[in-house]
């Protein structure tokens, strides 16, 4: 596997616990992702996959333990430094979170807001520089919908909108790309294409990639490493090729305590 050395940052969680609304969501999680690595997160709903991803971009804070990105401790960052770090981390949300009545170009360009001033933001949205627009166009080419550059975003199909969300995250020029169940609501063919796209782009850009998903087949096809989460704990952490049915059955087993 080619790992571009350009700008990837490693991600580290050490003894991390998170409680949300009084409920423990993650408990004593250790995870070390080296720069440029692609990691799949699997586990039943409520296992803490989304929370883990949100820890990495600092939208959820750890109650205990240390979260580091590129060697920097997130808890030690002030608001300004945290924003700068977030500008360096792309996030593809399951529900995309695009602005439906803006053009595709504007949604893609909005990925760069973390690095723009307020006047720069207005220029970017209303009269973008040719260089920015070209870069947005090239990204849309790479995700396969260059002709949609000036389309209104709510005119796109679900699969096309998802590609816009990916392009927006890449327009950030991040060093880490996070994707929360990007294939949970698309058909199998589209799911395969989307994951292939994410993994290929991350490799080309030299990004560290963390993706939460459910399908073991897709994990084996696209990822080198898989981390299983259950009840907020790391159940296993191994090469994706070693992901077998017994492991998954145990990970996804219905809890007797929940049933009773």
């Amino acid at each position, binding site marked *: 596997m080619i790992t571009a050395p350009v700008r990837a940052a490693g991600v580290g969680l050490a003894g991390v616990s998170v409680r949300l609304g009084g409920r423990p969501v993650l408990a004593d999680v250790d995870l070390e992702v080296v720069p440029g690595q692609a990691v799949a997160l699997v586990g039943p709903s409520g296992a803490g996959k989304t929370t883990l991803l949100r820890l990495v971009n600092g939208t959820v804070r750890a109650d205990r333990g240390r979260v580091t990105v590129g060697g920097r401790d997130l808890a030690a960052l002030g608001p300004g430094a945290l924003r700068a770090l977030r500008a360096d981390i792309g996030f593809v949300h399951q529900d995309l979170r695009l602005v439906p009545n803006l053009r595709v170009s504007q949604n893609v360009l909005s990925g760069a807001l973390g690095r723009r001033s307020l006047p720069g933001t207005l220029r970017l*949205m209303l009269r973008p520089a040719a260089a920015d627009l070209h870069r947005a166009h090239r990204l849309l080419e790479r995700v396969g919908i260059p002709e949609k550059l000036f389309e209104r975003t709510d005119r796109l199909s679900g699969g096309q909108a998802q590609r816009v969300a990916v392009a927006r995250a890449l327009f950030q020029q991040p060093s880490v790309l996070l994707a929360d169940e990007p294939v949970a609501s698309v058909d199998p063919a589209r799911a395969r294409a989307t994951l292939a796209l994410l993994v290929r782009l991350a490799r080309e850009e030299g990004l560290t990639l963390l993706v939460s998903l459910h399908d073991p087949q897709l994990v084996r096809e696209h990822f080198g490493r898989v981390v299983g989460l259950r009840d907020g704990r790391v159940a296993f952490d191994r090469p994706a090729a070693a992901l077998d049915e017994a492991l998954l059955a145990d990970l996804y087993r219905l809890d007797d305590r929940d049933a009773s």
Partner: protein
Amino acid sequence: MRPERRFGATGSLGASVGVLVLGLAAAWASGRVLDLRAGDLAPGAGGWQLAGDFFGRALRPALAFEGAYDGGRLGVVLQAGRAAVTTVAFAAAAVSLSLVGGLVMGFLGSSAWWPGRRAAAVTVPVRLLAAAMRSVHELIWAVLLLAAFGTDRLVAVLAIAIPYAGTLAKVFAEMIDEAPRDAAGALAAAGASPLQGFAVGLLPRAVPDMTAYAFYRFECALRSAAVLGFFGFPTLGYYLSASFENLHYGEVWTYLYALFVLVLAVDAWSGRLRREVTR
């Protein structure tokens, strides 16, 4: 997707029935309080005569003046045209002023604008001010301002602009607060400041509704400006009331039709612009 507020999917039918029952009960109760009787509405012979004269001219609006004044064969039409232009000018001046106030106060009064819990310190005073401005009707503002400043044209403009700014502030704040915040949140998670997230992720989703509402208020302002003519401002209402007092019903209809055409024109214009905005 945010969960539906106020009524859930199952509760909405029950709530509608409840509101309907409440409305009927209120109608009955207020009828008792005001001692309303349908029979009281029966007009006398003179009333029937006047109504007949007035509505008889509906299909025959005047072109020339009906009184002694000779303004040419199309005197009233020209007068109505001039008054219509003045009415539009008053309404436009008032709405543009109220838009400035409404936008500023609407932004300050929306909680989406303010990160964290400090919001109430700003939003509550702003919302109170807006409520105070719109709780006084434009006619009462006109009376107050006329007493203070005399019949300066700015008085009419301010009389409309003040309560309208209060209304716009309330509605704009609600539209901003009800716009989905998911995209703004996503931008903030990618390093954007709250203000950037607001401007790019949230505001664009409120703008089509805000534009449509501003146009509707312009339509309202046309009526308000026309009515302020009763105080002597040279809008359609001024000529309309003068003609009515002189029993020149044909002229009254000409002015009424002019108002009707104005409202239709604004409606057509705003419809086109709204399609542009939402396209």
